């Protein structure tokens, strides 16, 4: 008999297929008023040896869930964990109603298939100026790094702004949510934090042309939130920038 998580998937709607997982929108209960969840299914990879596949899936699902929990405990805005099934490779997390930062920023919609007119939401709708958004990004990353969680794949596609309708209309606020902790790990090393920032810097410059002032304000907010931890990270970030990621190719 198929397991209950697989049954759940059969009732869910497929949203996209990423590099290693299929992403679905589903309901955990039959009550339609309950909020939906996002299912991330690391499905069985036929090309991998079954033993290897099972152990990789197991470690990756639990690592992702652990990183999310660690962030939640430290007050970082990330999706809440709703269900973990390591043997099937299913992780259910809170459904975030909102839009990715990549699509909200100028230039981020390119290289995507043609968006339908009117479907692109603008920052005005979220009531957040670009500069405030950059500050939020810096603050969230700082909170995460203070908790010794390294995201591993910081890009503007992996950050979402919650839609204003998610909040109490009496107390409107803005909340930036970090998502996709598939490549995250635990580390307190200055090196790893600096590399994390460098990855984001490169993502900014490749997806959002003329983004230098944008990233500078992200760093400024990050600096303020990190306090005394900032100096060594800044020094290392300068090193990492010089080093680049690419080695010179021999042979």
């Amino acid at each position, binding site marked *: 008999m198929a397991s209950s998580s697989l049954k759940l998937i059969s009732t869910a709607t497929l949203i996209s297929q990423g*590099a290693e997982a299929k992403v679905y929108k589903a309901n955990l209960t039959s009550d339609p008023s309950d909020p939906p969840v996002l299912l991330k299914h690391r499905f069985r*990879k036929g*090309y*991998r040896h079954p*033993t290897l596949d099972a152990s990789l899936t197991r470690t990756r699902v639990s690592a992702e869930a652990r990183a999310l929990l660690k962030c939640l405990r430290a007050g970082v805005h990330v999706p809440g964990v709703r269900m973990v099934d390591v043997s099937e490779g299913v992780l259910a997390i809170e459904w975030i109603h909102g839009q990715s930062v990549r699509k909200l920023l100028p230039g981020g919609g390119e290289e995507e298939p043609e968006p339908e007119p009117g479907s692109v939401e603008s920052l005005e709708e979220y009531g957040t100026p670009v500069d405030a958004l950059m500050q939020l990004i810096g603050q969230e990353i700082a909170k995460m790094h203070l908790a010794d969680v390294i995201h*591993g794949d910081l890009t503007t596609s992996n950050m979402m702004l919650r839609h204003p309708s998610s909040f109490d209309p009496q107390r409107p606020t803005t909340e930036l949510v970090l998502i996709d902790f598939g490549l995250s790990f635990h580390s307190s090393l200055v090196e790893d934090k600096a590399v994390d920032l460098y990855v984001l810097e490169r993502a900014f410059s490749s997806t959002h042309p003329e983004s230098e002032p944008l990233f500078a304000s992200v760093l400024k907010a990050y600096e303020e939130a990190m306090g005394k931890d900032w100096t060594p990270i800044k020094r290392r970030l300068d090193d990492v920038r010089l080093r680049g990621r690419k080695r010179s190719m021999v*042979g």
Partner: protein
Amino acid sequence: MPARVLNNPLKNPERPYLAIGLEGSANKFGAGVIKHLEDGSTSVLSNVRHTYITPPGEGFQPRDTALHHREWALKVINECLVKANISMHDVDCICFTEGPGMGAPLQSVALIARTLSLLFNKPLIGVNHCVGHIEMGREVTGAHNPVVLYVSGGNTQVIAYSRQCYRIFGETLDIAVGNCLDRFARVIDLSNDPAPGYNIEQEAKKGKRLLSLPYATKGMDVSFSGILTAIEAYTYDKRFRADGLPRNSEDQDIITPADLCFSLQETIYAMLVEITERAMAHIGSKEILIVGGVGCNERLQDMMRIMAEEREGKVFAMDESFCIDNGIMIAQAGLLSFRMGFETPLSKSSTTQRFRTDEVHVSWRA
């Protein structure tokens, strides 16, 4: 952003073009003649190669490899011209590998190319070895705009084309996948004939037991050096039987060389398929082209095919005559750039061991 012009900058030639390519960046010396016809089609007139094979347990040293190339160059080039039924006077340009590769062998081949160029008064074209692999792969398989997995003894890269440049999306952080295989073949004394990787593949077919090895992917990059250390460590394990046979009927829990080959292949190829899949998802491409010596491994091709089916994609792979280093791929890439007006002056015809794939301006593609 201005709309990208997708007109092919390479016009069909007004007459047939002939090029000879000389390759010798590692332990193979190859020569090949390619012909570009007026209708834009291409034909391979000849493709000859000689491999320097070392005894089991030994790798090829730069000095001896260079010596091998010098000894075999004239025989191979002559045979290649005879098979193509042309004379050196007929070719339009002489293409050679500029890099990357081992210094001494590269220099020997460049010297031969220079001499021929002066003797017959033909232009020289320096070619990037990796671009040669990619261009030949595209030509042979007809892949349109694939994600390229380039796996060989010296290189491991995931590449995709963008704006006249072959961009490297992921690569090895330390040793190449072929290097890892070759060195392990030496550890268990497998023959280097015809190639260590081929013998590992045959041995792996007998393996049953999957041993746990590190699995080192970092985003779109991979690392193999730790895996090599870990698999070597199994040969010191007290369960390891070098002859692959149990000592007696009670000796059940054993590790054989075949098991090690099997585990090594399963682990490293899974890593390669995973980073290729990541690159495909990132770029949104449905085509995969596998090039380089390790690319003729059938297990790797099978795994890639399964992954492609899961994503509704398509795999393009080649047999050993074009996968393994050869002269014809140098001729192909060289002739493409020659037709775009590129030429390497004699004074600039030195070689380089370090020459990244993304340093080449791919002028012949839109």
